[in-house]
């Protein structure tokens, strides 16, 4: 048996809710617990013995950061990884269809498809086992999880047959409640999915040329995997759901990155205990789960954690406090400063005794299956929602000021305290 993994990484027009952090780095390369988001997908793939190749599909221009990431990760996992660039945004199924020959080369038995903007403790081997237990040869397995009744409508909702786990009904972001079982955006597809995508493609092209499609408002190239391909397959005996109760979260906003970061660090206890920092003589004080990149310099009088990731080459000065935050590569924290619920951008500096603080936007931990909110930046009355604080790349925060619930765009030199603002 041979399998492949396909990760849909999107492009620069996507992931806008992740700004300003996605302005310069493709969002899938944003680090969660010290490793790029998509690294975690790749690592999960590497635990599936028969998975022989990983394809990243998206419409980012090839960049040094992406190329280097692919090279390094490929070497580390001894797995071929290739980036296939779409000529435009083709949609989740359109991208697969465009590169179908690449996916089918070497005749895999079936292939995993991932949306890159989720963080999950992927149960890929379990999903595969389930997939293989299905009788039909034409079979598509969708990873599913539970949501609250209220939040389910923000996701793709599915109704499954309790015994057979066949998906009886599927609808993307319904207006009214359908089911608390939601689509995780991770699939295991057998090759003949292309037959169904081809049908959608043909139909769209026909409509285009016989004039029944409005080409101004409709992108002729886009085919969506969920709505256009899988939804019609519900109830036909081909689409199945494998439900997991493991951790799963979308990473749409920067706030959800901190949430995902926490769970990823927690999972390091299971997969990579060596990545978690420990207390010791001459070392900074560590509370809970903390990841410190080996190249970072952290003063022994600093206190970090819980849920802190310290990136490449970060410098943390004496008496600094960091909690529930991500410090991106090259950032510098000067003496006694305090960073809470924030993301400090690449090469940004926070001055002595300054305070950078955001408001946590975690889901309610007491309500089971609650997901992080769809988190819009503004309330209905136009005011900024309290959010985590984000400092973009190369932001300078002087000494002794406070940045509270604010988003600071890159290359900004701040001179006074800022609260509840977006600084352009």
């Amino acid at each position, binding site marked *: 048996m041979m399998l492949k993994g396909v990760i849909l990484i999107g492009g620069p027009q996507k992931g806008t809710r992740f700004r300003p952090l996605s302005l310069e780095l493709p969002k899938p390369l944003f680090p969660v617990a010290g490793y790029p988001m998509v690294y975690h997908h790749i690592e999960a793939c590497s635990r599936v013995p028969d998975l022989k190749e990983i394809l990243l599909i998206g419409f980012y221009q090839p960049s040094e950061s992406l190329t280097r990431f692919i090279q390094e990760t490929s070497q580390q996992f001894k797995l071929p990884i290739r980036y296939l660039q779409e000529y435009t945004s083709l949609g989740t199924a359109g991208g697969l269809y465009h590169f179908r020959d690449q996916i089918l080369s070497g005749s895999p038995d079936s292939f995993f498809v991932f949306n890159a903007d989720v963080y999950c403790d992927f149960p890929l081997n379990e999903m595969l086992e389930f997939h293989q237990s299905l009788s039909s040869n034409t079979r598509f397995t969708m990873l599913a999880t539970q949501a609250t009744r209220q939040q389910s409508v923000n996701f793709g909702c599915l109704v499954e047959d309790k015994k057979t786990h066949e998906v009886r009904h599927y609808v993307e972001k319904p207006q009214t409640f359908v089911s608390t079982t939601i689509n995780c955006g991770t699939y295991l597809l057998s090759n003949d999915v292309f037959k169904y995508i081809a049908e959608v493609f043909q139909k769209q092209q026909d409509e285009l040329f016989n004039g029944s499609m409005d080409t101004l408002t409709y992108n002729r190239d886009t085919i969506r995997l969920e709505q256009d391909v899988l939804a019609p397959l519900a109830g036909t005996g081909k689409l199945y759901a494998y439900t997991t109760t493991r951790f799963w979260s979308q990473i749409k906003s920067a706030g959800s990155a901190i949430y995902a970061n926490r769970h990823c660090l927690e999972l390091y206890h299971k997969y990579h205990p060596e990545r978690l920092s420990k207390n010791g003589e001459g070392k900074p004080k560590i509370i809970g789960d903390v990841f410190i990149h080996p190249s970072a310099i952290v003063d022994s009088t600093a206190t970090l954690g819980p849920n802190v990731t310290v990136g490449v080459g970060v410098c943390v000065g004496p*008496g600094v*406090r960091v909690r529930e935050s991500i410090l991106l590569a090259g950032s510098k924290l000067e003496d*006694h400063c*305090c960073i809470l619920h924030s993301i400090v951008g690449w090469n940004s500096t926070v001055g002595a*005794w300054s305070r950078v603080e955001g408001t946590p936007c975690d889901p309610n931990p007491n309500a089971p299956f609650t997901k992080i909110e769809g988190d819009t930046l503004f309330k209905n009355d136009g005011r900024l929602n309290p959010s985590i604080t984000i400092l973009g790349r190369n932001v300078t925060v002087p000494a*002794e000021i*406070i940045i*509270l619930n604010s988003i600071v765009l890159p290359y900004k030199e701040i001179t006074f305290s800022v*609260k509840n603002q977006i600084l352009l």
Partner: protein
Amino acid sequence: MKALILVGGFGTRLRPLTLSRPKPLVEFGNKPMILHQIEALSEAGAKHIILAVSYLSDMLETELKVQEEKLGIKITMSHEEVPLGTAGPLALAKKWLSEDDDPFFVLNSDISCDFPFKEMIDFHRKHGKEGTIVVTKVEEPSKYGVVVYDTNCKIESFVEKPQEFVSNKINAGLYIFNPAILDRIELKPTSIEKEVFPNMAQDDELYAFELKGFWMDVGQPKDFLTGMCLYLTHLRNTAAEKLAEGPGIVGNVLVDPSAKIGANCRIGPNVTIGPGVVIEDGTCIKRSTVLKETRIKSHAWIESSIIGWKCVVGQWVRMENVSVLGEDVIVQDELYVNGGRILPHKSIGSSVADPQIIM
């Protein structure tokens, strides 16, 4: 000579500090507010000081007993059963104030300045009239009642919140009067500023004495801090040896000898640290007063705040914007207090992001 200090009521404007002790005993520059006045009066030759109070306080009486002995003067409490305003207390204290023909001082208790009592006596004797009001210059006269006087300093009129400029001098709340003034005042609630002074001015009996140095009404937290800055600057010019020096001390800082300051701190400018206070390592304090036996933990940052007695401020706490902690308040680690007024014996477990009172 005698002096009457108008202490008045509960000092509500200076709450939550005045919930724990009477306002005259709240330390300003590491010394109870009233002692600044009592000591200056004693030095100017006052032998009998009368405190006009509208409440009774054992704490205050005990403290004043100590001062009586120390300074060798007599201190009397004149207790108003009903608040008598700013003039009524003079009538109530008539039996002491009219014992002889000497002029006597009257002062509001919230005033911080370089008290010019000796110069006032000279000035008062020179013009020979019934009363002298000390006046001080302000930048925005339209916010106050101003005093208009001629080149001989004889007061012509008082104008409340002038819309157009007539004078930039305001009543500083320090006076010297001849006992004759007592004939103008009945024993009932009366305002000396509104009901007595205008008549005296009309009779050509009132003169203005211009104050040279700093002046501040420190009766509320914001002005308390401004007044403290002025007071420390004054100390720098007159008694620099009282101010702290050393590593980590910036500008004018007053530190009680029993206070402990850790390493890598930055204290100042304009900070007063009371007795028994412990400032842990890596703390930054600016433009603030820290009262007796409080502990400020490591890496905290405090600006423009008054920290009451026996408080504990946690690590990495940020406090600013005229925050005031009452007695025995605990602010837990890593919190942000912005303009919070925290009542005594309270433990704060979450940030106060916007100015508010925490009961």
